[in-house]
């Protein structure tokens, strides 16, 4: 008896669980949601705390984030602050041996930068070229780093070259950047020259060693060298600076101030 009634009910209504509603006479609330096919450009919903602070506009400058070395996990944060140009440096096919023959993928190297102190480098491997390029652009935006520029000689005008000699190494390739006088231009091979142009460095001498034909290592090595410009402690940074609060502390509800 109970079985037949439940069976009859099952025919009339779907099973009751979260999200499954019986037929409605009232207008569907769910109808307000756009169809899955018609995608208008999606507005970004931040996921991390830093993303939420940026989306609300509480962080004015990206250097507030760089100062505290906070990990940036969403590339839309970078998009908010900087207008970056991107360029694909190389797309190289790579293969891997599998049980069913070879699997070919495409590896894309993309460099992004604003030609004025920020560069990023992204590498992405994917089965299709377009996917690899768009993935590499996202990876590049996530790796954007500030570049410190200095002077070769007299401190006149705007900084134009690397502040000190720096070198970066990746694999067997070591790239050394040396300050150069104004007007020299970028004295480098094609690959690091592109990166340095995007960084906004005007004049620099370079010296490289190792198997520079492996483009991946070559471009990584010069990227690491550029990164080290801000890691190098020069005498003009000796003066002690007052500690300021991290963006998390500054914008949090300061519970200690509230009276319980």
């Amino acid at each position, binding site marked *: 008896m109970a079985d037949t009634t439940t069976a009859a009910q099952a025919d009339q209504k779907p099973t009751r669980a979260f999200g499954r509603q019986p037929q409605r006479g009232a207008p569907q609330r769910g109808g307000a949601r756009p169809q899955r096919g018609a995608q208008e450009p999606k507005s970004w919903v931040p*996921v991390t705390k830093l993303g*939420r602070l940026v989306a609300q506009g509480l962080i004015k400058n990206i250097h507030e984030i760089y100062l505290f070395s906070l*990990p940036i996990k969403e590339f839309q944060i970078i998009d908010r602050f900087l207008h970056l140009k991107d360029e694909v440096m190389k797309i190289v096919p790579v293969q891997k041996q599998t049980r069913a023959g070879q699997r070919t993928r495409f*590896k894309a190297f993309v460099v992004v930068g604003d030609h004025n102190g920020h560069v990023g480098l992204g590498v992405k491997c994917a089965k299709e070229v377009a996917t690899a390029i768009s993935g590499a652009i996202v990876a590049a935006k996530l790796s954007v780093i500030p570049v410190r520029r200095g002077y070769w000689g007299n401190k006149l005008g705007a900084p134009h070259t690397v502040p000190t000699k720096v070198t970066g190494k990746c694999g067997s390739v070591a790239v050394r950047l040396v300050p150069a006088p104004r007007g020299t231009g970028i004295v480098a091979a094609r690959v690091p020259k592109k990166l340095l142009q995007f960084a906004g460095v005007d004049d620099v001498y370079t010296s490289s060693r190792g198997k520079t034909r*492996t483009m991946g290592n070559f471009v990584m090595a010069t990227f690491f060298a550029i990164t080290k410009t801000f890691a190098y402690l020069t005498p003009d940074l000796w003066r002690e600076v007052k500690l300021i609060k991290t963006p998390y502390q500054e914008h949090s509800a300061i519970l200690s101030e509230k009276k319980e």
Partner: protein
Amino acid sequence: MVNVVLGFTEKDFNKSQLTSNYFPTKVGGKPVWLDLSNIPKREELFCEKCSKQMAFLMQIYAPIDENEDSFHRMVHIFCCKDPRCGYYAAVRTQLPQVNSFYPSDADERKYDENYEDLYKQQPEYTKNRQNTCDYCGCFAKSNCSGCKKVYYCSKEHQQLDWELGHSEQCKLLKDLNIIDINNLEENKKIPRKRVSDFLFKELDIITESLELKEFPPPTTTTTTTTTTDDKNTNTNGNSNTESINNLKIDSDDEYDDDNDEDDIDLDENGNPVYKNEIGKELIPTNGGETMTNDPEAIGKFEDYIGETGKKAEFNEETFTKIKDKSLIYFKRIVDNDQDQILRYSKDSNYPILWVSDTDQAPEPIPQCSNCGSNRKFEFQILPQLLYFLDMDSTLANNSFDIDFGILSIYTCESSCQIKSNTTTTTTSPSFVKEYIFKQDFKK
């Protein structure tokens, strides 16, 4: 075929529909209880670490068809306001179909226009209902002595509510004969109260069902390099990986990110080019301590160390090798529906979304404290919820500072009924606590 139900927040909603009679699924505001004769008391909802009352985050109405005790079933999520605690609690209540608060066909009747009249005409459904605190929504012991129409759970909440605006309302409420507290905002004669900062912003949740098409790549990559007898090797042994391989449709290599150790470059003609690893001996591995006494050599060597910064803590691996696969999968899935806040799936094949490879849920999930049976994953809450809760605030108004990566809720498999305590003198607990696990983003 794995089905998952996604939840999205909705700002425009009918406030009166988010009350007990409608079995709402919602975020924020005051908690709406199912079993109205056994409403949780304030003391049951204290944070275990700081012993302050927890704030109500969200609730979902998730009935189970097979179990007749859980014809109506609600799961409430509470969180401690203090970010240093980081304590979350998941609480489950349920009712059978025949009960003393709602008619047996309430689930269909709630869409009718005269659903509210039903309760007015049949007072047996409302007479046993306990009162809830006007400030926080818990069980209310006492009422305001001025108007006697508003209830509070504790003196603190009465004082807070008085300051929020009940002081202006009290006298006016005393004179009104028929009080419907829910319609208080519509009654123009009574001044409105300010919104308390104890409650989160109230939002409705609408759901959408989705078939999961993308699965995470398996964590252990079994790369076999045998070229012969490929069809035969998989019949024995590797049946588990085969079933996993059948599940992953596209994700095998597409997003097997930069697993480049096996990759060989090809030049223009398609011939493989092998990279040479020379020069590893360039860097001395003894931490920079020199052996020679030649000052020039030492000078050059120290120059080199200074330039390369080998002693600086710059980690090259952040760019190349270490990829958090869980985070990559998370970003990919979330990208399809950026504003989802809830993922519900009772399917045991559902790949639980994590935000980091480390600190995932402990493997032996604690068993149900009420009946001892195993707990099973039910749903998870995504961090986009925090974005929707903050939307109108300057941070001065927002007294919450909570942050999480993902919250996963595991509930009792048998959805057991609350056992009544016959040994103690206190009344039985109003709910069953379920296991909630919080995972943060990796720093």
